[in-house]
């Protein structure tokens, strides 16, 4: 973990010099890919809103670079867990650590709504993702590259309102990716999309995750999406992790294969049986 920390620091240092030294920038890009992905350790995590005890002791270790899907019935606290991980809510008890000092831009979140600034062109919306580096001289280039990664290079000068729902969500993905995050948390990012767009977006998510190697945490209510994308599926119930299922099928996965269907069925029945208890 020491080496990771040092790279992270020298990264910022290099960033300030990037405009003078293209060589250094290349190096930095390479190192990013190598060191991407942070492990995640959650111990005894609790969170309540007033009398409503939402999370009642979550213990979880996620190795660096793993793709984890979180499922559970509505209101079980999936979003709350994600928001705690992203630092958007205060922890009541327990701890979340990333095995390393993290910079703010190392952890990014994507929501169901794209949350684009309607008054900024697509490219400047992506530049928002650079955070403090937003004003740096290579901001345009980096944002343009991130847009190209999600296949929207030709839309850079458009207003967000002319884009389709799927395209907006891809811009949001580019904005999350542009700072090369090491943990990327998704809160039902595809929930509002039609079936076909969903599938192409799932492919895109899987591709960027494989390319960049960040640790991915995907909250979804679609179990078939969970087994199609994730290495591991967590079922949350009654504020705890009720089931922890590994999906060991090799990638690229074949959609609708018997193995995935069987897995999906068993997770669904667990979700439903959890429903019966309450």
């Amino acid at each position, binding site marked *: 973990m020491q080496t990771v920390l040092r790279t992270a620091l020298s990264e910022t240092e290099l960033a300030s010099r990037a405009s003078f030294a293209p060589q250094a920038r290349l190096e930095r890009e390479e190192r990013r890919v190598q060191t991407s992905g942070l492990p995640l350790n959650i111990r005894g995590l609790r969170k309540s809103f007033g009398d409503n005890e939402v999370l009642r002791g979550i213990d979880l270790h996620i190795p660096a670079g793993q793709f984890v899907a979180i499922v559970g019935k509505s209101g079980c606290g999936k979003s709350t867990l994600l928001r705690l991980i*992203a630092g958007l809510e205060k922890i009541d008890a327990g701890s979340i650590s990333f095995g390393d000092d993290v910079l*703010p*831009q190392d952890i990014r979140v994507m*929501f169901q709504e794209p949350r684009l600034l*309607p*008054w900024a062109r697509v490219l400047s919306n992506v530049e*928002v993702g650079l955070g*403090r580096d937003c004003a740096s001289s290579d901001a345009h280039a980096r944002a343009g590259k991130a847009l190209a990664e999600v296949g929207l290079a030709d839309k850079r000068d458009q*207003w967000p309102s002319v884009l389709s729902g799927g395209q907006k969500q891809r811009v949001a993905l580019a904005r999350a990716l542009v700072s090369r995050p090491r943990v990327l948390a998704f809160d039902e990012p595809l929930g509002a999309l039609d079936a076909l767009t969903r599938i192409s977006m799932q492919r895109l998510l899987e591709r960027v995750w494989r390319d960049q190697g960040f640790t991915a945490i995907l909250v979804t209510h679609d179990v078939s999406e969970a087994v199609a994308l994730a290495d591991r599926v967590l079922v949350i119930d009654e504020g705890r992790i009720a089931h922890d299922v590994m999906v060991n099928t090799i990638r690229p996965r074949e959609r609708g294969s018997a193995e995935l269907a069987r897995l999906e069925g068993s997770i669904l029945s667990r979700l439903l049986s959890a429903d019966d208890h309450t």
Partner: protein
Amino acid sequence: MSLVDRVFLPRKIRLPRVEGLVQWIVPLAIVVVWQVASVTGFVPVRVLPAPSDVALAGWKLLLSGELIRNIWVSFWRASIGFLIGGSIGFAFGLANGLSQLSAKLTDTTLQMVRNVPHLALIPLVILWFGIDESAKLFLVALGVFFPIYLNTLHGIRTVDPQLIEMGRIYGMTDGELFRRVIFPGALPSIFVGIRFALGIMWLTLIVAETIAASSGLGYMAMQAREFMLIDVVVLSILIYALLGKLADTASRVLERLMLSWHPAYWKR
């Protein structure tokens, strides 16, 4: 559009011009009917002078320099009053939209003052300021204050909280958050306030100048009334309408420039 486009695309240029003319058909028809009604004696000249008489009166006043001087005085009062009232309203709107403390401190008071019709203060204002410039500026500023204050406040309060959270997640400082998220988000509402305020600005000025002034369009109309110059009275009314329309157009153009991202402003 470049010169080349003009040469090769004559129809595209001409079409919008024709469309632009369409809206003037009705006003023009009204003037024609009015003129005919006056000339034939259908409408007595003492009730409403013919448009040609009004135009003639305008021409005379223009030559004497009186018209320009009065328009200028009214325009000056309107803009200075608007600037003063508008900036104070904007400042309070910003402060109360951004700070809970400030809102708690002043919002209730302002809402109470808002319920007093500002024109009801005219007698008091005359007692305070006499009939000099500050009386008119005060009234205009007061009238303009509330629409700008209320709409700025509303605009800031209704900025999508999800966008604000997004800005925070991506590490925007308070200043950046204001500049890139809150202010642009509040702008459509602020423009609504400006349009309202422009209407109130003219209304206030007309009343104030009619009652207590020694120059300006309203004064010109009152003077004309005393000498039974009905053509000048009608002229003043028309000029008020024209100036109001001008202010509205200016704010629309500004709106369209600054809200070019908004789909509502893409097509007429």
